[in-house]
């Protein structure tokens, strides 16, 4: 019996070491673009998902009414070929392209567009609501739809919400719960490729959509895309080097040099406003944090004790840049300049001083401070996202920074799905995660309003002034004034010290130059080639002749395997021994 168990344990260990082996394609097989990534998918339902990996699938699966230019995110024709403004900017009339079809051959009409916008607004779909909240869609004819905003809307005419096929969704989407619980694996979309297979924890396969308007009546240039999940980023890097993948997203910064050395691999550090943060539980709703965190002085002290430079140097090898407050949009112009004494520059001495002055002293001499009345030692529950490649080391560093100023830290591990639940429940004190914002700052800003508490508000904090300004910027048509308002909002968030952005982190991506060509950076020159705001690459890529590499190089998998086998060798020996003892008894 034990032997079976040990064999099973071995098999499991080895399967972890030898994370998904992608079988190289042969000539008869469909032409496949193979993308490696390290972030799992929780749901492919575009109304509620939140992970960057999920957005990537939707970017490919769903066309949008207006598209975003690859170069600068400018609003360009998508499903709509043109639009006209009237009523002083409150109303826009869009004309759809001729002969639009869903991937299953059903016509895609103005009716479909209007149903999406009105239903998303009425049922308050999480990922659409901030865009459509004030908008009413009216069908003029099959190819004409009119959007009317009840208030001035600086985002119009941009309308980039994912449009789901009503002929599939209408019977399902009867209310918020049934809509958001739908698995959305019907495979009907309007983008260049549509979902054909989803294995959670493994891969997503998407096949070419012959009805995609962007092909302009021609055959799709290649047959399918496979997004392959890797538990271990090094295994992913090795798979790219050995031509088992065409591109990878989110490789460890430490592998950049090795990848750059390969003449057939192009390395990209794509900037699109993405950042990582340590969030502090602000305690606005249920799930209370440690009481000390409700005092802004303690939160400020924590901010002063976080050494961002150390992280940028040791974990990003200088590829990231420091950040003082949240980055709400793809353009870094939205980030206010907070410097000098206003900034929380690493200074543990100052952090200790703030805590001393506020009365949080270590009264019993155990190295951990207590509340001013001497009770309740300050020990924080720091949630570590086991699906995040940097969350482990950042957790260790955070523990070190906090112990340095007399605050204890208990590390608690959660996978991505569990962590999202923990954040919603508020049963944490701090955690480390990141965001890739949208082009427009509105959705990211909405996440820190009172309305998003218990949902996307992962600071569990709100400020009435912030909420007021949020509504103000939402209706401000003067871009300069809107920028000012956003800057003021982000300064409020910064001073509340409830969200400690660490750095603007680039998306580290690499692609093979000998299999596909036509990769597009969004935005131009600085952006990533995939996992961007509208991911334009997939429709532009063309396969180059017959791909395939030699599969050579150092077989580190073997080395890893040997370590595991050696460590488990004793167990096999032992189990054999035990099983015979069992039999003889």
């Amino acid at each position, binding site marked *: 019996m034990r032997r079976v168990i040990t064999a*099973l344990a071995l098999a499991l260990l080895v399967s972890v070491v030898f994370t998904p082996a992608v079988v190289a394609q042969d000539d008869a097989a469909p032409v496949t673009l193979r993308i490696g990534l390290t972030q799992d998918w929780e749901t492919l339902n575009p109304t509620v998902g939140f992970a960057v990996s999920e957005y990537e699938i939707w970017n490919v699966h769903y066309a949008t009414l207006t598209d975003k230019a690859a170069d600068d995110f400018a609003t360009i024709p998508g499903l709509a070929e043109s639009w006209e403004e009237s009523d002083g900017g409150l109303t826009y009339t869009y004309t759809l392209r001729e002969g639009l079809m869903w991937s299953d051959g059903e016509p895609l009409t103005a009716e479909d567009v209007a149903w999406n916008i009105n239903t998303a607004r009425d049922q308050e779909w999480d990922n659409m609501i901030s865009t459509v909240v004030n908008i009413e869609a009216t069908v003029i004819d099959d190819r004409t739809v009119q959007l009317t905003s009840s208030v001035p809307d600086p985002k119009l005419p941009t309308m980039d919400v994912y449009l789901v096929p009503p002929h599939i969704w209408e019977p399902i989407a009867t209310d918020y719960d049934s809509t958001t619980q739908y698995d959305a694996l019907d495979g009907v979309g309007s983008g260049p490729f549509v979902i054909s297979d989803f294995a959670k924890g493994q891969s997503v396969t998407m096949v070419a959509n012959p009805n995609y308007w962007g092909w302009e009546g021609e055959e799709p240039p290649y047959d399918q895309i496979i997004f392959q999940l890797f538990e271990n980023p090094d295994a992913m890097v090795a798979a790219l080097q050995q031509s088992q993948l065409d591109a990878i997203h989110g490789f460890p910064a430490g592998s950049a040099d090795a990848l750059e050395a390969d003449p057939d691999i192009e390395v990209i550090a794509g900037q699109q406003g993405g950042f990582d943060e340590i969030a502090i539980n602000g305690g606005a709703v249920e799930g209370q944090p440690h009481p000390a965190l409700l005092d802004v002085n303690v939160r400020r002290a924590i901010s002063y004790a976080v050494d961002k430079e150390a992280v940028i140097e040791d974990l990003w090898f200088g590829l990231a840049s420091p950040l003082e407050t949240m980055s709400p949009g793809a353009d870094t112009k939205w980030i206010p300049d907070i410097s000098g004494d206003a900034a929380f520059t690493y200074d543990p001495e100052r952090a200790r001083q703030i805590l001393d002055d506020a009365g949080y002293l270590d009264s019993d001499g155990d190295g951990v401070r207590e509340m001013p009345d001497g009770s309740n030692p300050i020990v924080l529950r720091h949630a570590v996202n086991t699906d995040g490649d940097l969350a482990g080391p950042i957790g260790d560093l955070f523990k070190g920074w906090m112990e340095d100023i007399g605050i204890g830290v208990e590390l608690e*591990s959660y996978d991505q799905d569990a962590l999202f639940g923990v954040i919603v429940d508020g049963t944490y004190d701090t955690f480390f995660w990141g965001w890739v914002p949208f082009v427009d700052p509105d959705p990211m800003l909405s996440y820190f309003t009172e309305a998003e508490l218990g949902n996307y508000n992962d600071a569990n904090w709100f400020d009435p002034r912030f909420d007021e300004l949020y509504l103000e910027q939402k209706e401000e048509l003067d871009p300069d004034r809107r920028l000012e308002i956003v800057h003021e909002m982000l300064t409020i968030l910064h001073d509340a010290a409830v969200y400690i952005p660490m750095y603007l982190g680039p998306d580290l991506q690499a692609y093979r130059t000998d299999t596909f060509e036509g990769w597009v950076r969004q935005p131009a020159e600085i952006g990533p080639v995939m996992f961007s705001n509208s991911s334009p690459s997939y429709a532009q890529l063309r396969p180059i002749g017959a791909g395939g590499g030699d599969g050579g190089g150092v077989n580190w998998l073997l080395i890893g395997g040997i370590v595991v086998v050696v460590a488990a060798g004793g167990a096999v020996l032992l189990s054999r021994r035990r099983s015979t003892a069992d039999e003889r008894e």
Partner: protein
Amino acid sequence: MTSLAMQRRKATAIRVWTQFRSSRQGMIGLAVLALFVLLALAAPLLADARELNPVFARSQGNPQWGTPGDFGPLGTDHIRRSVWAQFVWGSRVSLFVGLAATVLTIFIGSVIGIVSGFVGGKTDGVLMRITEWFLVIPFLPLAIVLASVLGRSVWNIIFVIGITSWPSTARLVRAQVLTVKQRLFVDRARSLGANGSHIVLHHILPNVSGLILANATLAVPISILTETTLAFLGLGDPSSASWGKTLEEAFVNGAIVRNAWWYFLPAGIGILAVVLAFTLIGRTLEEIANPRLSRQR
């Protein structure tokens, strides 16, 4: 307890020790184990615990990914921590979890085995069906599920290992109890009016304790390996630096691609050595407790 019984037990202990001493494999195992126990006990003398703190390590100017040549004796990791400190302090966690989980395993297994074998009848049937049920559940998936449900602390890991690995001990002990139960001295005690608990404590237990001890020694390495496996799969206690966690961190943070052998080899060899030591000791004890094993070879 009569002095006669005491004398007899003392004599048994001496006999076991004499036999053990004559076994080369047993003595090698004991020596290796003693070395690691010493290492664990002397951890505060051998390595500064602050070296486990990446912030302290950085403030000391430790190199990142330092080789054993750059930073003695075993180099540094991705966040500048001393690997030697991780190895020394990790031995404590690994040994502690291994031993504590074994105590739990052996306790559950022995109680169920003795009750099942001694009481017999329906009780035996029910207990053995439960045991078989645990035996047929794939061990690692169950441990993984339990570890993720219960949360990741050292005590939960111990609990998970204990609750998943007792069945073979229970079967082994039950079999031994069944043979001992048939022996004349048990009948004699019974006819003299001894009740069940007296017979179990004074006649059965002493006669199966050798087997339990041998079994326990063999259960320790399995517990250590299980802890390593769970930690390697990311299900260990994130706050305690066990060898399994060192392996996991080395793997996740790219030590293998970098050929940073000094990061993962010490922990790997440590696990191998301790597991081997316990196995050698356990085999020797098993042969002494159950001489048929050595005669048949």
